[in-house]
């Protein structure tokens, strides 16, 4: 009877372990993405730059935007393209217009292409760090301050920064 019990207990633990393992996969996935730069996930925290190391190297940074799930927004970059010096701090902004009559909350999710070089795109200031509140029919300027890291591999001439703007009004309402 004893060996029976051992079997049951071991198997029950195996089941519980595998269930928790499915949740462990979530942080593991994030770590994996961070190491490999998969999905173009950029650093979610702001970078502090004490001293600029301006170089003579130039790269093109392109800006794109998407509005998710037909939210009532117009969301556009003011500069479609910038030629920037590697190491220099740059400023630009996106404009967000609320086409509806009511107050909306919006959250932007950033992504960099090519994904494996997302880590070299450093954001000092970004509207993607926080949730935006926008009144009905209002237009807002959303600033970004960024620097392209001097360690960026030499063969990279262009980086694309893409934002997707989500309507999170419902999620705010339920919280």
């Amino acid at each position, binding site marked *: 009877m004893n060996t*029976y019990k051992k079997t*049951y207990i071991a198997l029950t633990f195996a089941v519980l372990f595998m*269930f928790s393992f499915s949740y462990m996969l979530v942080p593991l996935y994030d770590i994996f993405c961070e190491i490999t730069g998969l999905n173009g996930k950029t650093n979610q925290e702001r970078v502090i730059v004490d001293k600029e190391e301006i170089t003579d190297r130039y790269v093109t940074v392109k800006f794109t935007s998407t509005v998710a799930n037909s939210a009532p927004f117009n969301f556009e970059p003011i500069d479609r393209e910038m030629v920037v010096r590697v190491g220099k701090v740059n400023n630009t902004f996106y404009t967000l217009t609320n086409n509806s009559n009511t107050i909306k909350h919006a959250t932007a999710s950033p992504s960099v292409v090519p994904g494996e070089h997302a880590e070299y795109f450093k954001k000092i200031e970004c509207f993607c760090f926080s949730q935006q509140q926008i009144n009905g029919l209002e237009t807002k300027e959303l600033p970004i301050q960024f620097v392209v890291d001097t360690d960026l591999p030499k063969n990279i001439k262009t980086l694309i920064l893409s934002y997707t703007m989500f309507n999170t009004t419902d999620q705010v309402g339920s919280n």
Partner: protein
Amino acid sequence: MSTNIDKLHDDHHHTPSGIMRWITTTNHKDIGTLYLWFSLLMFFIGGFMALVIRAELFQPGLQLVIPGFFNQMTTMHALIMIFGAVMPAFVGLANWQIPLMIGAPDMALPRLNNWSFWILPFAFTMMISTLFFESGGPAAGWTLYPPLSLQGGDSMPFVILSIHMLGLSSILGAINVIATILNMRAPGMTLMKMPIFVWTWLITAFLLIAAMPVLAGAITMLLTDRFFGTTFFTASGGGDPVMFQHIFWFFGHPEVYILILPAFGIISTIIPAFSRKKLFGYDSMVYATASIALLSFVVWAHHMFTVGMPLAGEIFFMLTTMLIAVPTGVKVFNWVATMWRGSMTFETPMLFAIAFIVLFTIGGFSGLMLAMVPADFQYHDTYFVVAHFHYVLVPGAVFAIIAAVYYWLPKWTGKMYDESLGKIHFWLTTIFVNLTFFPMHFVGLAGMPRRIPDYAVQFADFNAIASVGAFGFGLSQLMFVYILYKTLKKDVTAEDKVWDGAEGLEWTLSSPPPYHSFNVAPKID
């Protein structure tokens, strides 16, 4: 323990009669029978949905159903066939056969066994009832990919809860199988002397225990994303829908081996019986099964080559996937070598088993084609994929189940089925199954996408052929029901050893076997 069984010895006196016998039963044979009937019912419900799909696809354009309902049909067809037809059929076979084959009186956990079956009807009632909701049933595909599955109607929490229940049922069944096999074998039956079907089920049970909780986790995350504000897969909160695909297929790939390993066990039992030879390479069969099971945990991303992965990742998953062809090739080689120079006869179970080898191998080869990353970029989400997995599941898993039923039916019921009707059933099934699924290779390679109710006119001819095949296949299975009915109505008793080449403890018992199989454990040398 043994005194308990002795008390129960004069079985039928202690069992309630009528419907209560089946509801309260803890007998492995009764539960096995329940599983098998339930699986047959689900096979027909899921098959009916497949026919709705094929009827709509008979011609280009929209004829019979609206696209939303079409999507519900593809989703429900898959869920019902996987969780309702194939898995319960294998658990039913395990319940019937494992105690008989290892010389045990019953399963190790009879009450749990009862519960794991009786969860199923409730889970499926709930799942199928969503089709009658105003917002309809689940329509995002059986893989439940977010964000689409999060945007579905009211059916979503019901479907998720029913999948939880199905998972629970499978896990309990798996614990029971492992506990039985590890603790209740007849004295002298070492692990490497176990019948191969028992081996494949032992490995399958471990796969179930490792994979089903991961599915439970993934769908729980979907549920909390939708209703409790978590953002595992919601991009607006920093989540990632692609992560769902990784977690899902971490379950999903072992799952496809859960659906095929017991079939390998059945074929490895039937082929030697009708070749009148011992199974060629028993040890290598065991090791091949185990290595397929282990490899199944490191190949999941081949289901999602097109999501955007680093090159190293694609190469890794491509190579591990192709590696699975090696142990699978060993198995096919062993089956052919078992038949080589055997005194073969071709009764119905053997016909289904031989067709399994041929047709499953075709499915295996198309799988190998899909494993190649550059090729997969073209094949992804086309009918080629549909052709591939139907070749391994229908003439694979389903043929093995039908073969097993023909092979053991005389043992279970004590009555012989009608051999000539069985052969007609085999030929109709085999012809129509190929008529249904073979043209799908062609339309898939030509670029017809899956899960679409309408298609471009150049695919019309092959789709019409596939639809004719599907109706022929579906109707031929009514013949299977008639054969079962006719067998059960018979009075003629089958011999104890129905097949002269068959080996194993189950053939030492009477046909049908006594209610409690082995009250005294048999001796194995």
